[in-house]
């Protein structure tokens, strides 16, 4: 997030696009709802489904799945043509405005309506609310990123915010809400194929030599493979060994049949986890790990706040903390790693990572700190891009709308979109073990519009069979107007109805995120 969670409550307008906030980030949704109910902020919701946030919205834009760029361009068209944009800010702090303006000219509200299905007048209203707010925050999640145009979608959001001068101010911002507790931290710590900690590129000689000196070994300059590329390489026999820490690609990755084949090709699959996940079941070696309640450490939340994790319980049996396992294995392999406690590891991170340099356990004892925090006296950073962007001037991107990779046709006439529900989490390995959660949400449901259900002869609670070009799953139908006609919604928490047997592994060309949010399917009564 460029800005902080708390700022959401005190801003004037909130534009939530592709985020089912009440279910995926409930506590952030409380800030949004408080902003609306207690402080008079205006909420704009853009989502194909009638999510709970709609109840609090001043206006709801029901765009067709995968048409976000067209919608955002439409809003920018209105803002520019009505002269509502921040002219001074655009002039002083950005570049690329003219090229962007040129593309956007085509996206009149009427043209955008044709692509998105959102009435032209609603596009105008939303654009005006956002532009006239004085300060406004954009919230988004996977509903924006999990498309082949995910990178474009994100850039479009940034375009809109810059156009109105809402980046680099308190209460403004473009805020991706992170789905998993420590996605932010995993990225910050360099668990990415192209960067070390703090996004320092592996291909940069100077950076590499800094790490080589600190670690006492020569390091490879060639960028590595992403998850999806790794699985493809494993499938082709180019990757022979895979070490998986606490992930479950057997349920979370697109096109599961392919994933299983890939994993079966490996000479060595090691899985380190707290439970025997679907992926662990295929492993050659499984290592039992301690869970968050059984170890010390830190997580970094979606607003870049580094916070302490504390040990409350002993790990069961012989299970050990992940850091201990990595240290011991490394030592076995002839590279001794010796740390007395996670605090010592953080000290090494402080030394090698400018943005984390001032984040020490001593300071975290009291309160979390938001990076960048370059030294021990720095208070941390509430919002980014104050006065100047990281790259100097903010860059507008001229973006055209590109349709999803797979659109409905005669054989697969429905759009399927996927997501989470409040009560479950990710692949369900953890959340499904809870009594209360299971009581509230025991099984997967396919949301389908009443008209479609009637046509197909599917009744509430009856099993529906959903088929895509890649696979088939069955789940009980939930007949509801939450979804638009022609679209079904499924969650990915349940292995009994593993939607990723169906989803399309088509990747966004830049950030390689699969297009989970749109694929074409056929629906029948089972």
């Amino acid at each position: 997030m460029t800005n902080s969670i708390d700022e959401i409550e005190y801003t004037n307008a909130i534009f939530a696009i592709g985020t089912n906030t009440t279910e995926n980030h409930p506590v952030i949704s409380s800030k949004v709802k408080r902003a609306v109910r207690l402080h008079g902020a205006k909420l704009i919701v853009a989502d194909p489904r009638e999510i709970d946030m709609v109840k609090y919205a001043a206006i709801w834009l029901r765009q067709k799945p995968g048409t976000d760029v067209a919608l955002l361009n439409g809003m920018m068209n209105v803002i520019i043509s009505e002269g509502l944009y921040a002219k001074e800010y655009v002039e002083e702090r950005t570049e690329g405005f003219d090229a962007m303006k040129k593309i956007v000219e085509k996206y009149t509200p009427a043209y955008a309506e044709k692509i998105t299905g959102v009435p032209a007048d609603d596009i105008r209203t939303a654009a005006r609310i956002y532009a006239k707010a004085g300060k406004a925050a954009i919230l988004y999640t996977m509903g924006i990123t999990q498309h082949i145009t995910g990178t474009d979608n994100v850039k479009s959001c940034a375009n809109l915010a810059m156009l109105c001068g809402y980046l680099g101010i308190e209460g403004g911002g473009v805020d991706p809400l992170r789905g998993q507790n420590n996605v932010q931290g995993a990225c910050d710590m360099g668990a990415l194929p192209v960067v070390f900690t703090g996004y320092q590129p592996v291909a940069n000689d100077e950076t590499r030599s800094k790490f080589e000196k600190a670690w006492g070994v020569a390091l490879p300059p060639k960028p590595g493979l992403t998850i999806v590329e790794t699985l493809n390489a494993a499938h082709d026999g180019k990757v022979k060994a895979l070490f998986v820490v606490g992930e479950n690609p057997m349920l979370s990755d697109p096109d599961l049949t392919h994933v299983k084949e890939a994993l079966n090709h490996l000479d060595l699959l090691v899985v380190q986890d707290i439970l025997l996940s679907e992926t662990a079941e295929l492993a050659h070696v499984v290592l039992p790990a301690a869970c968050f309640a059984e170890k010390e450490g830190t997580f970094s939340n979606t607003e870049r706040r580094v916070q302490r994790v504390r040990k409350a319980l002993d790990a069961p049996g012989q299970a050990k903390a992940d850091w201990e396992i990595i240290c011991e294995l490394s030592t076995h392999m002839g590279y001794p790693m010796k740390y007395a406690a996670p605090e010592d590891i953080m000290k090494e991170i402080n030394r090698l990572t400018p943005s984390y340099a001032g984040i020490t356990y001593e300071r975290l004892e009291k309160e979390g700190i938001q990076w960048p925090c370059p030294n021990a006296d720095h208070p941390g950073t509430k919002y980014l891009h104050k006065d100047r962007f990281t790259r100097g001037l903010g860059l507008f991107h001229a973006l055209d709308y590109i349709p999803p990779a797979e659109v409905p046709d005669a054989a697969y006439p429905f759009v399927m979109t996927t997501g989470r529900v409040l009560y479950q989490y990710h692949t369900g390995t953890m959340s499904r073990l809870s009594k209360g959660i299971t009581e509230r949400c025991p099984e997967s449901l396919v949301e389908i519009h009443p008209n479609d259900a009637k046509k197909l002869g599917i009744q509430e609670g009856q099993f529906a069979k959903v088929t895509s070009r890649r696979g088939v799953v069955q789940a009980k139908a939930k007949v509801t107007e939450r979804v638009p006609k022609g679209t079904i919604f499924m969650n990915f928490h349940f292995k009994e109805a593993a939607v990723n047997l169906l989803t399309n592994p088509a990747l966004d060309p830049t950030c390689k995120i699969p297009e989970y949010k749109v694929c074409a399917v056929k629906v029948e009564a089972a």
Partner: protein
Amino acid sequence: MEIKKISLTIDGKEIQAIPGQTILEVARANGIYIPTLCQYAGTTNVGACRVCVVDVAGARTLVASCCMPINAGMVIKTDTPAVRAAQRLVVELLWASGDHNCLTCEANGVCELQSLVYWLQIEKPRFNIESPGYEIEETNTMIQRDLNKCVLCGRCIRACNEIQVNEVLDFAGRGFRTKVGPAFDADYIDSECVFCGECVDSCPVGALTFKQAKFQGRPWEIKKVKTTCTYCGVGCQLDLNIHNGKLVKVTGNHEYGQPNEGRLCVKGRFGLDFVQHPNRLTTPLIRKNGELKEASWDEAYEFIAKKLASIKKKHGADSIAGFSSARVTNEENYLFQKFMRAVIGTNNVDHCARL
């Protein structure tokens, strides 16, 4: 801008305070104790219980200090016989109109009604004890409602509507039959309730309790460990309540501040059964003859080290890849990428941020 303070007197003490503050706020800021019950930080002051009454010189009746803004020159007494008598009457009525059996109550020791009774030194209520006789709600395994213990303070309603803005709870009925709960007198499980548990954290008595924590440890035996939720990216600060090596329940704490100011959702609150679930992995496993068999740590390390070394030798470091995790700590992610880069010699390391 300099805010002009005004002066007033509480219990004979001359005090400077900011206009707009309530009597209660000023008293608290100056270390003067006034008991309260319905007042709840972060929500509207409703003045429902009248436990916080004080004597204001010149006022016709005793006033509820939680709702009354201060005036210059006010003379306030918090400890007159009339104030105490009024407080006793309120507390005795509350006691007598419910089933306050502290012997088995989960709130015993942290209950605000119990504290008031003790503080006001009430031996016994002067009225006959008549519990309304509601059935205890046991239709879900997360939150137990015993409305026979409810003091109708409305804190749960304000917690649900103002703190979380879930808009589930309200008052229903009138007089002796007034009740708090979801619309249409539904049980929680049949309502729009999303089981955030905020109402339970807010309840001053034992009317709303965490069902699975029942008989699992008394408040003074429980150790609270502050940590960060393991589910979504909000990173809520929460307290793991531990007794005898067991995770008993999860509570929020408004004093922890950002990012969640004590608020939680159902996952952080009720989603942690996995921690002590019998399915947890407890020993390393190595596949032998197609089956995963228990092994020692040394065997497992030996097996992995040998295999990785031979694959690296035969096919090069880039034939090895690692997936780190958005679930493990920063320190662990750091070490894992260090392991892949420095020990294996490849940049093939990623995690599922994209998925």
